[in-house]
């Protein structure tokens, strides 16, 4: 079926183009921002001209920005060098941590963030879908009203504030750890102890994250289910003599998940900003905390790397959502 193949190809093409735009934007952004330490150092009047040249060569600052018209290969420019090193996974050295590469820093931070984000996303999707379904089905009953109020309240809570409340309660009443991903200097007797310690540290941030995401998922799911329940084919299913359970399972669930798929993907951008806040509050060594720290220390290579990583994640998530959507909804992919 050429329709389906064409759909696939066009979505992948879109993702590739967006990735390039993102990389270019990232490149340009960090060239136009003032205060790049490398450039400031190179402009230091106390340096000898030879030292300046050496520095400029080291950072490639002597090269033209995009296309080399001064001789040599036209591709020998800052931009294409950047692309070239990206292709090798090389994002440069951190300014703040001189001994670490950007890739290793953001790599380990990303792993920590995933520990946080994945369980929270999963939990909030499951509960958001269930809650939204029940609220829509039992529309205008007390169940719906309370679920709706709960979700609107959650939606209005700033992530960091929810984190602070949970931290306050958890630390003062339940003696839960307030910072980090594990007890510092702890020696674990068994892997079980390690997991337990990790779990105790993960509990509050995960709950915070789950609750923050839950509100919106529930709201969207509810209105999507109400829309689907109002469709004529639901009436057909009812007239066919299907039980309510089967109508929901076989006719409503898949259709009402469609807007959710898009939302979850778009939400990954929001998940990132949520991660920044949650990681700030709980001192979780993830990509968000790394970003904030890099801003404070003007660690541009790390910032640039983190930025790129976040954007790439969102692009890929969007692509995954589009493909999933195309699989769920035959109308989209077969035209």
């Amino acid at each position, binding site marked *: 079926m*050429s*329709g389906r193949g*064409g759909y696939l190809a*066009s979505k992948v093409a879109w993702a590739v183009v967006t990735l390039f735009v993102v990389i270019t934007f990232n490149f340009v952004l960090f060239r136009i921002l003032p205060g790049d330490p490398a450039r400031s150092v190179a402009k230091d009047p106390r340096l000898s001209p030879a030292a300046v040249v050496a520095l400029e060569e080291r950072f490639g600052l002597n090269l033209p920005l995009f296309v080399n018209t001064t001789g040599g290969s036209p591709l020998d420019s800052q931009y294409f060098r950047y692309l070239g090193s990206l292709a090798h996974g090389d994002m440069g050295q951190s300014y703040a941590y001189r001994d670490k590469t950007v890739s290793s820093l953001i790599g380990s931070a990303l792993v920590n963030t995933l520990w946080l984000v994945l369980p929270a996303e999963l939990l909030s999707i499951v509960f958001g879908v269930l809650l939204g379904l029940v609220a829509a089905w039992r529309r205008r009953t007390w169940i719906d009203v309370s679920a709706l109020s709960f979700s609107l309240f959650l939606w209005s809570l700033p992530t960091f504030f929810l984190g602070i409340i949970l931290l306050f309660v958890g630390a003062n009443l339940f003696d839960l750890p307030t910072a980090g991903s594990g007890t510092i200097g702890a020696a674990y007797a068994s892997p079980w102890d390690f997991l337990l310690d990790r779990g105790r540290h993960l509990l509050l941030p995960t709950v915070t994250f789950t609750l923050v995401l839950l509100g919106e998922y529930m709201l969207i799911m509810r209105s999507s289910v109400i829309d689907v329940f109002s469709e004529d084919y639901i009436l057909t299913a009812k007239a066919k003599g299907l039980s309510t359970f089967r109508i929901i399972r076989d006719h409503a669930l898949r259709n009402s998940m469609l807007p959710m798929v898009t939302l979850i993907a778009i939400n990954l951008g929001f998940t990132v900003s949520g991660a920044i806040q949650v990681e700030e509050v709980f001192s979780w060594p993830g990509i968000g905390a790394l970003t904030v720290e890099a801003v404070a220390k003007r660690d541009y290579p790390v910032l640039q790397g983190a930025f790129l990583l976040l954007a790439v994640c969102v692009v890929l998530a969007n692509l995954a959502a589009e493909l999933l959507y195309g699989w769920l909804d035959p109308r989209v992919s077969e035209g």
Partner: protein
Amino acid sequence: MAEPNRSEPTLVVEGLVKRFPARASLSDLLHRRRIPPVEAVAGVSFSVSGGEVLAIVGESGCGKTTTANLLLGLLPATAGRVLLAGSEVGSMSRRELSRVRRNIQMIFQDPYESLNPRMRIAEIVAEPLRVHGEAGTTVEEAARVREALTQAGMTPPEAYLGRFPFELSGGQRQRVAIAAALTLRPRVLVADEPVSMLDVSIRAEILNLLRALADEHGIAVVMITHDLSTVAAFADRVAVMYLGRIVEHGPTAEVLADPQHPYTRALLSVVPVPDPAARRRPQILAGEAPDPSHMPAGCRFHPRCPVAFDRCRSVDPPLFDVGEKHQAACLLVEGGASRPAPD
């Protein structure tokens, strides 16, 4: 088709063609397949004089609505000419076009959708005047709005001026749309399925109103419809369209009583008649009209035609004269001999 005893036709259409570029899929591009354009209107000619009602009849997808849009200049024609009161619509500059366009106005199918829900009736009816800079003073404008509403049967007009469309019934809304079309005192009205969304009991009044506008104000009316039975009581002439072509054209009574094209015959035979005693033999064509991107060779009707023969597969018949003002595009009437309908 010149009619010596009448004045020059108000609207003349000659060889009108509209092709839409086909959308190529990715695989078409990769395989460098050339996609022929879709011909929605394939050489349509007719004329309408003041006071006359012409009905263009056909099934959905036959090109009748595209034809209407071409008449109004809402779409550029690929080929052919539209002459409105002697001047050619297609070749005009924007400004001239806007000046000429006031002479041809359109009435749409859906009176629930075609009126802006946020505008009052007075504004809706006055809008064409304002658009064409003819509103004049407030008093003049109000007078013309009242005149148009009265002509459209909305009496007394004062009762409706301040209302919103949702406060009116479907029939009243359609009258407002007609009133708006009348404010510019056009010479041609194009009505696209003007009654198909209305209740049966309301339809006759709207149709009678359009007929009266033709008879009393000398307006040329082009009605686009899928419904042959409304045509019967209402139009002077009828043009039957199939896949972008007029396949039969003639005075209504003659076409209905003695259809010459097999498609017209089939179409007539399936029109439901409100009389259970009338046992007719409907001649139901199998399948659906092909979409214009897969145009059959030869006569475009031959794959569904019950009386097709060999030559139909290769020869695309033009309109042959079968009566004084009656033509049909079928090889069976090539000699012009009007065969009596079978039965």
